């Protein structure tokens, strides 16, 4: 008796095999088909440039305005791969480290640029930015330095930020207080405690654990209190008296006048809080100003902006830049370079201002933007201080003592992501009262020292 297979099983198997076969032939990215490199003159051969980037305001605008670029450069198709910041880091790092070559342009920060350039992963952009129209010297100097390695530029910035203290004028004045233009942390703590009430918290600060979240703020605090991650001999200073003092001060300030749930608070949560008038002050990135001064913001015009609070140093703003870089694995170097120089050029800033909104011009990258009368008018509330702050920060020695790396709120070593993260988690547990500050910092010292030893 012969067994007859169910007919549908056979059909399904055939369909599935066919699908597999067709998939392995036709699947994959477009880069396999566009293997030709093109120069910008012969626009005839079609080129696709894949850009991996974050989802922030400037990038969203760039995606919109890329239609302009494509119109000017027929045959070039720019594809944006927008990802959440953590995913972007994972994807791009995996891609570059393994040489997969999925991206022609990657968005990386000033922390990654020097390290990746040292690994030979990025294309040297110096030949592409030498034109007078591009005017590479127009890029704010600290930013330019942060994106260079051994004197060569490896990435171009489309967004730069430092940090400032902002305050709600109505709330502060109603309490009969003033905020000095260059406050100290002690003054800020005083004001915060005085102005705190049932409805309003004194100050919003990041508490969410992370090397780029709570510790962007904390590293600047530590530095202005006189401490730092490492000294010139790569000896860790995490449990030094100054570091401890800064962390203790931070913990007390959060407890007495900070957000109710500090460990869940980072930039976005404080932004919501300030917009709703729940906080009197906020210490965070300069870009917060543009968001709160937008036309439909309920607190437009009600904010005051002053320098980041200091203790022992002259200024304590941090420095961060999101920038565009070209991995060495790309097959479209010239086309990619052409795009990124367009996207960070003076004419691009002009385009944003005229087509979208002068408030949305990418902040903190070019000095000339700050001199543009339209921008000055639209961003009058915060542009001057942003420029002052960004030009005056010193990534070579932000703290009281010299340091063996270039960078303010991070240590430019590969281990820092990990070290900073772990120490941030320990400090978070201290803020929540689960361990003491001393326990946290002693453990942090061990972790940091291991990384420090690797640098010697």
């Amino acid at each position, binding site marked *: 008796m012969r067994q007859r297979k169910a007919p549908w099983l056979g059909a399904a198997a055939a369909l599935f095999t066919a699908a597999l076969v067709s998939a392995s032939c036709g699947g994959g990215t477009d880069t396999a088909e566009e293997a030709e490199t093109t120069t910008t003159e012969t626009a005839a051969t079609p080129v696709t440039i894949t850009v991996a980037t974050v989802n922030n305001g400037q990038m969203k605008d760039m995606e919109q305005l890329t239609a302009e670029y494509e119109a000017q450069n027929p045959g070039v198709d720019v594809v944006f791969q927008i990802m959440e910041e953590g995913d972007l880091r994972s994807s791009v790092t995996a891609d570059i480290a393994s040489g997969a070559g999925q991206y022609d342009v990657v968005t990386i920060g000033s922390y990654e640029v020097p390290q990746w350039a040292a690994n030979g992963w990025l294309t040297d952009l110096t030949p592409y930015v030498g034109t007078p129209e591009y005017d590479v010297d127009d890029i704010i100097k600290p930013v330019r330095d942060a994106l260079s390695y051994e004197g060569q530029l490896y990435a171009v910035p489309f967004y730069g930020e430092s940090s400032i203290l902002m305050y709600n004028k109505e709330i502060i004045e109603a309490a009969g207080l003033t905020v000095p233009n260059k406050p100290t942390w002690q003054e800020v703590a005083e004001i915060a405690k005085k102005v705190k009430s049932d409805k309003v918290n004194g100050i919003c600060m990041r508490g969410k654990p992370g090397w780029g979240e709570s510790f962007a703020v904390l590293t600047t605090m530590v530095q202005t209190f006189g401490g730092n991650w490492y000294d010139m001999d790569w000896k860790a200073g995490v449990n030094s008296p100054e570091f401890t003092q800064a962390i203790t001060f931070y913990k007390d300030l959060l407890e007495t006048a900070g957000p109710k749930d500090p*460990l*869940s608070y980072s930039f976005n949560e404080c932004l*919501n809080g300030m917009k709703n008038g729940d906080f009197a002050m906020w210490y965070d990135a300069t870009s917060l100003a543009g968001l709160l001064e937008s036309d439909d913001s309920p607190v437009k015009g009600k904010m005051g902006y002053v320098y980041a609070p200091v203790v022992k140093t002259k200024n304590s703003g941090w420095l961060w830049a999101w920038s565009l870089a070209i991995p060495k694995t790309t097959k479209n170097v010239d086309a990619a370079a052409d795009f990124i120089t367009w996207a960070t050029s003076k004419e691009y800033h002009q385009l944003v201002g005229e087509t979208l909104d002068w408030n949305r011009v990418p902040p903190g990258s070019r000095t000339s933007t700050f001199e543009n009368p339209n921008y000055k008018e639209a961003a009058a509330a915060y542009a001057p201080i942003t420029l002052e702050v960004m030009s005056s920060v010193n990534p070579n020695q932000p703290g009281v003592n010299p340091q063996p790396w270039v960078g303010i709120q991070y240590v430019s070593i590969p281990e820092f992501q*990990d070290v900073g993260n772990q120490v941030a*988690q320990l400090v978070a547990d201290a803020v929540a009262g689960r361990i003491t500050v001393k326990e946290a910092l002693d453990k942090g010292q061990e972790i940091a020292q291991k990384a420090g030893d690797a640098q010697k």
Partner: protein
Amino acid sequence: MPAFSARLWFSRDLREVRLFLQKAKSTTKKTADKAKLKGLLYPAVIFVIILTQLPFLLTIVFSSINWNLLKPADRQFVGLENYATVFSSGDLIPALIATITMTTMAVVSSLLLGLLFALLLDRKFKGRALARTLIITPFLVMPAAAALSWKFSMFDTNIGAVNYFAGLLGLPEPAWITDYPMVSIVIVLAWQFTPFMMLILLAGLQSQDQEVLEAAAVDGSSTWKTFQLITMPHLRVYFEIAILLGTIILLQVFDPIAILTKGTGGTKTLSYLLYERAFIGLNVGEAAAYGVIVVVITIVLATLALRTLFSVFTRGVRA
């Protein structure tokens, strides 16, 4: 085919011969059947083997290499050094405790809630189909989106709904993430997995023999007694499957931890610790060693659990 038997040749008893031939035929059929059954099973198993064991083998290989993604030049074979780092780092035990705590709390709470809703939605009432579809929705939303929604619109102390309603009702308004990190995560997980548990338990409730239930009612058995003596034993298999599968899935859970607490406050499970080692520490070798160790631990625990507790695994087909 039975082995060649000399007896056959010398036997003049035809009945014996016929019996022998019948046995041969049924054994042949049994062997053919066995082969067919294996043929039904092997495609799935081979498919899974190829697609999961190749990456796992590679993971084992990586665990013997010192490889930091950001320092490609330093890549080299180091034998068991990564395992030594894992055991001496002091992170393994807390992560194990966190994993067991979180998984147990999430499984138990979602199971109890799932049972509650299964019982409530088992009875007929108006709009039952709608209620059932609504209850499934937390399970349908993308976990990361659900976690973000809980973080901002539910748990936030300023704009969140939970503290808003708590305030209206005069209840305390806690700082969820800072003071109750584990509870916050378990709430989100239980919320997401209650529908999963409910689906399985509802299937169990619906497959009860109606005649038996009616007979019990006629005999004067109270609802509670019927539940105790008839329903619960029947549901045992379904409980087991729900707990087993729920545990396996919840062991790997990652999004709520990454979005709500970032591993602080004793919420750093093995899954999240591994993610940190791999993508923030960028230490592929160490992460691979962690992975292998987690697999070994889980195999040991699973073997114990399955062979002692789970009748669904140990029993064969209903005899």
